[in-house]
């Protein structure tokens, strides 16, 4: 499951953060941290389609970034999709990662935003910290255009 982007201990910390988030917002049916290019960093969900959700998130992120850019709204911050049976929300976690959440239709969206924004800051810190620990010529590039 783990990718080249973060070491195993960072993955465990991100997973712990996802679990804390799901405890605070019980209507979440899935939580996933992915790199902006579509690789799963950590996931906590009953369903097993994390890889495809991460890949689709990356595709949606690309469109959302361009849309935000070309309408003069600046960099990507978040994306909310409401389906007939619930929500899918994606939040930027720094430049190189995103937090994607799947929620039941009766979720408190106000609370979802508050908790998810806090979590994405925390996940950004965890990723940056783990990249910092491994800094050197081999450090992965974090640039996205």
């Amino acid at each position, binding site marked *: 499951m783990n990718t080249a982007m973060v070491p195993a201990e960072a993955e465990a910390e991100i997973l712990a953060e996802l679990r804390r988030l799901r405890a605070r917002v019980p209507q979440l049916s899935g939580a996933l941290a992915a790199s902006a290019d579509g690789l799963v960093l950590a996931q906590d969900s009953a369903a097993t389609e994390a890889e495809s959700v991460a890949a689709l998130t990356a595709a949606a992120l690309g469109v959302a970034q361009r849309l935000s850019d070309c309408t003069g709204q600046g960099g990507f911050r978040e994306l909310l999709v409401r389906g007939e049976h619930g929500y899918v929300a994606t939040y930027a976690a720094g430049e190189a990662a995103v937090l994607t959440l799947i929620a039941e239709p009766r979720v*408190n*969206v*106000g*609370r*979802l*935003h*508050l908790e998810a924004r806090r979590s994405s800051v925390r996940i950004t810190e965890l990723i940056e910290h783990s990249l910092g620990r491994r800094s050197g010529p081999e450090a992965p590039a974090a640039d996205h255009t």
Partner: protein
Amino acid sequence: MVNVETALKEATTTIEGAIGAALVDYGSGMALGHVGGGKDLDLTVAAAGNTDVVRAKVRTMEMLGLKDEIEDILITLGSQYHLIRLLKGRNSEGFFLYLALDRGRANLAMARHQLKKIEESLEV
């Protein structure tokens, strides 16, 4: 009939001791508008949190088998009153007005009466 912005402005300017007011959709937990508040009282946090309060009370009443509706909810803090008033009207189901008051300056009976009047005139 007045709109959301006008109603909230009226609530914070005419009700003695008002600190902030918001109109909240408790289906989503998001505020349709808010006036006042500031760094000591983040009204978007209050909107999301009080949505859980309203939902919990609605659920409790269902479990108790009470076939009734909530008119308002009063929360008394050491230094503030928080008033939640559910909107009635045909097109305004699923919303509540939230009003935070300074307990030292507010007249609770008067505030409740004024909020009821504002709620009746409000059109979402």
